[in-house]
């Protein structure tokens, strides 16, 4: 069995192991889950060591790494085809890291423990599968497999409005994916396998325009398919008119699940655009790029302003995600070297920063049992270490130089400025709004006089620090020296940009 398959499927086998542990033995369930999520992380790190930085991937199977390719359902040309390139590998690594940390952050779950950890492990396989699949059918299966555990994780272990949030998330994302199903089928019947001449779900064949049938080359047809696919991904990102599921899901989900939602699931939307929409419909992508940039700017400004208006700390963080994902959209709409790499770097960086923010909100909620920003004040007096880590995370989120958020945003702006000048200026205004809501939040929560209610609040625990510190270190490390990450992207991104006319 290949290394990549191991990484992908270890969690789901782990889920079976967890189910076999007796119900009373909660400690064992947690420890086993932690060990099981740690193994893929170690393997993924090992793969990083083995990673060949010069191989580009994207539309050439020979350029993919850790490939596994064999027939699954021969009667319908469905294949088990996985592999990584510079586009997917950073996300795979990040997924394994965040999953491990999220398991640690789930230590205080005490309701139906077995179910929680088993579902979580199933979710991890779903996420990893999405990033490694190169067969559209397989991709779709993994994409949908994530929904079920997510529904239960929000619906059973979430906050007071969890039922509403869970079903809303489920319906929205299912709506997106069934649209994708139509596109997938349309592509299947209109792309021929260059070797056998039959239909194929192989994404790489779909990317080769000469395999497209005459019908699929029609301008209107391509635009429609692109739009359907785009809505599917836009719901996941979420892009402005489709974002309403996000605040509900994020706020109601338990801490660790918010981390996964914001850290990984949101990235799948933009990953899908990079992996599927762009290479398969490059011409339409160019034609619609201005719209994408506008949507990106709307996301940035709308997300930032709405975040500023929030009274609930977690909701504020949730809307800041909407805003930050806008930078990814803006960057990827430029097709410039800096913009595209910046977008991908923002995906990676935001995955870490937003994970930290949600973890921090979780820490504070566990102690105070509320999240009203106005209800705190002066917490830095009683929780200096916590305040220090939190300030670091918040500054990373507002794009302070020396941290990853800054690198990503600067790259995006460099890429965009030459292409869409006005939009860039508007987006930069978004930074100011971001800075203001973040600084204002820091001030209201940590600074000033200590709220007497929290005289006896306890300092952040070792376990909680353990989930935060690695992310903090990475945010600073890659903020000062981003080359290792950028090197991962480079070959693939250059190749992708060349594919686009």
């Amino acid at each position: 069995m290949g290394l990549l398959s191991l990484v992908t499927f270890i969690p789901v086998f782990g889920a079976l192991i967890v189910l076999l542990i007796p119900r009373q033995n909660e400690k064992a369930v947690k420890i086993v889950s932690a060990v099981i999520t740690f193994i893929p992380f170690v393997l993924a790190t090992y793969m990083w060591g083995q990673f060949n930085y010069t191989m580009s991937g994207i539309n050439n199977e020979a350029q993919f790494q850790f490939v596994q390719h064999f027939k699954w359902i021969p009667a319908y040309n469905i294949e088990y085809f996985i592999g990584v390139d510079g586009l997917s590998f950073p996300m795979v690594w990040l997924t394994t890291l965040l999953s491990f940390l999220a398991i640690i952050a789930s230590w205080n779950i005490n309701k139906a423990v077995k179910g929680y950890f088993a579902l979580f492990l199933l979710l991890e396989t779903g996420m990893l599968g999405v990033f490694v699949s190169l067969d559209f059918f397989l991709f779709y299966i993994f994409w949908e497999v994530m929904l079920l555990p997510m529904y239960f994780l929000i619906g059973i272990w979430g906050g007071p409005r969890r039922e509403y949030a869970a079903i809303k998330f489920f319906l929205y994302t299912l709506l997106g994916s069934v649209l994708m199903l139509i596109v997938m089928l349309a592509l299947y019947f209109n792309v021929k396998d260059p070797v056998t001449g039959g239909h194929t779900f192989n994404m790489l064949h779909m990317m080769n325009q000469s395999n497209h049938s005459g019908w699929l080359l029609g301008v209107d047809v391509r635009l429609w398919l692109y739009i359907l696919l785009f809505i599917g991904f836009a719901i996941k990102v979420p892009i402005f008119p489709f974002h309403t599921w996000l605040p509900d899901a994020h706020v109601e989900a338990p801490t660790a699940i918010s981390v996964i939602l914001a850290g990984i699931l949101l990235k799948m939307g933009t990953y899908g655009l990079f992996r599927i929409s762009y290479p398969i419909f490059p011409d339409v992508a160019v034609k619609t790029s201005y719209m994408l940039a506008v949507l990106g700017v709307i996301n940035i400004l709308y997300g930032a302003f709405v975040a500023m208006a929030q009274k609930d700390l977690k909701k504020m963080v949730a809307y800041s995600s909407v805003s930050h994902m806008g930078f990814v959209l803006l960057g990827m709409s430029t097709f410039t070297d800096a913009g595209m790499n910046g977008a991908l770097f923002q995906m990676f960086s935001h995955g870490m920063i937003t994970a930290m923010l949600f973890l921090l909100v979780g820490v504070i909620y566990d102690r105070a049992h509320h999240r009203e920003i106005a209800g705190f004040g002066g917490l830095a007096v009683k929780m200096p270490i916590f305040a220090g880590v939190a300030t670091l995370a918040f500054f990373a989120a507002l794009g302070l130089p020396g941290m990853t958020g800054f690198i990503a945003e600067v790259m995006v702006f460099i890429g965009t400025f030459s292409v869409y000048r006005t939009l860039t200026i508007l987006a930069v205004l978004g930074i100011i709004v971001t800075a203001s809501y973040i600084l204002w939040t820091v001030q209201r929560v940590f600074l000033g006089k200590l709220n007497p209610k929290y005289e006896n609040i306890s300092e952040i625990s070792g376990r909680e620090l353990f989930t935060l510190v690695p992310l903090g270190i990475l945010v600073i490390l890659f903020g000062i020296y981003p080359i290792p990450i950028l090197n991962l992207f480079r070959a693939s991104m250059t190749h992708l940009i060349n594919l686009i006319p």
Partner: protein
Amino acid sequence: MDNLSSLSYFVPELFLSAAILIIIIVDLLLKEERKIWTGFLSAAALIISTFLIFQQYRLSASEIFHGMLVVDSMAVLIKLIIAVSTTVIILFSLPFIKTKSEYYMLLLITTLGMFLMAGVNDILMIILAMELVGLMSYVLAGFTKRNLLSNEGSLKYILYAATSTGVMAFGFSYLYGMTGQTNLFKIQQALLANPPQQAAFFIVMILILAGLGYKIAMVPFHFWLPDVYEGAPTPITAFLSVGPKAAGIAVLIRFFTTVVSHSAPGAALSFLQNLQVHIPMLLAVLAVLTMTLGNVVALRQTNIKRLMAYSSIAHAGYMIMAMVVFNAQGYQAILFYLIVYLFMNFGAFWVIIIMTQKLGSEEIDAFKGLGYRAPYTAVSMAIFLFSLTGLPPLAGFIGKFYLFSAVVKADWYVLALLGVLNSVISLYYYANIVREMFLRTTETQVDIPVSLYDKVLLTLMLVPTVLFGIYWNPVLRLTEISFNILR
């Protein structure tokens, strides 16, 4: 083929007839407390006839009894589905119906009728076979004598069936008048030789669709279904949702492939386009209406049996959708869907059967907290429901995938789009049951004991539902070899 040589093509049906007679005699000899043996015997008879049906895959497709019936691989597959479904229903009923052997006999006779429906090739035979199935079903639907709802359902069923069969028979009489034939193949040739008068043929189509549509609960001929489903004993509800539906679909496919479209290349199109009324478009509209009505009305149900009734209307809609394309791929997708539908639908019904018994209520509310009181059952139920929604990696998704892919392949994009949007709607009411089971809890969490027999049956339904979602190549092969349809 003449009557005598036809008999060797008629072995499963002959065996089943003999078995029914023997069971009637055995019933007379058994004491009250031993009557359950008739149930065991019925199950055994069905299992044997399943093997006999399997043997029929070796026969070459042919018309038997002077063209009254055909034996081809589609008939064989439909019979297999029917035999398996009745076997499962008998297993479902054994714990509950221990003294009334007529129940099992009625089930067997219905099965015999459905076997005939699977191979009908003559308009008279269509009426005979459908009536045989229908008559037994009315009795079964009203089987709980003292239950008012059951009586109501049964009466509605009879009235509705009588009307729609009458309408259909009237349509057949027109068809006979136009062609002078009752055999479907001969009707086809006559229609090709002398293209019918447009308006008359359209009326014929509508009249006949009323009869066939009632059988598979196509909108607007679905009104009987929710009441019958709610009133009938739950195992019978499950039975009605798969077996007769499969048989009805077989008749529909046969009717379409002969009277409406033509198999010869090129001829199919010209044959269809002879009509001013675009039959595929008509069917597409009916399919969308059927699934949308089923799904939307299901949203507001609080009784779980009524909910399953509307869900089964919606599923009939999905199957009709694939019929629109009038090609082998569409029909194969339907056959595939019937197979997975059998397992997931029976699985869900089995949970409903055992749980409504134990909870003493058919309301969805009663399932509250079931996930913590009977975890294995509740998790299985969730899997069945999500499979019915069509979520991967479960068999229901693969089934729907083939239905949609047949539709997309024939460029019916709008239809496919409406179909997938319907899937999204259906998620809401299926997830509603899951929500009651897992997201809500009761005050006192008392474990509900589930017997080993219940669990074994549950697992028997669960394994295919999960397995065919991960590896379904064998089923796909089976449906492929099962469409050497005689036409």
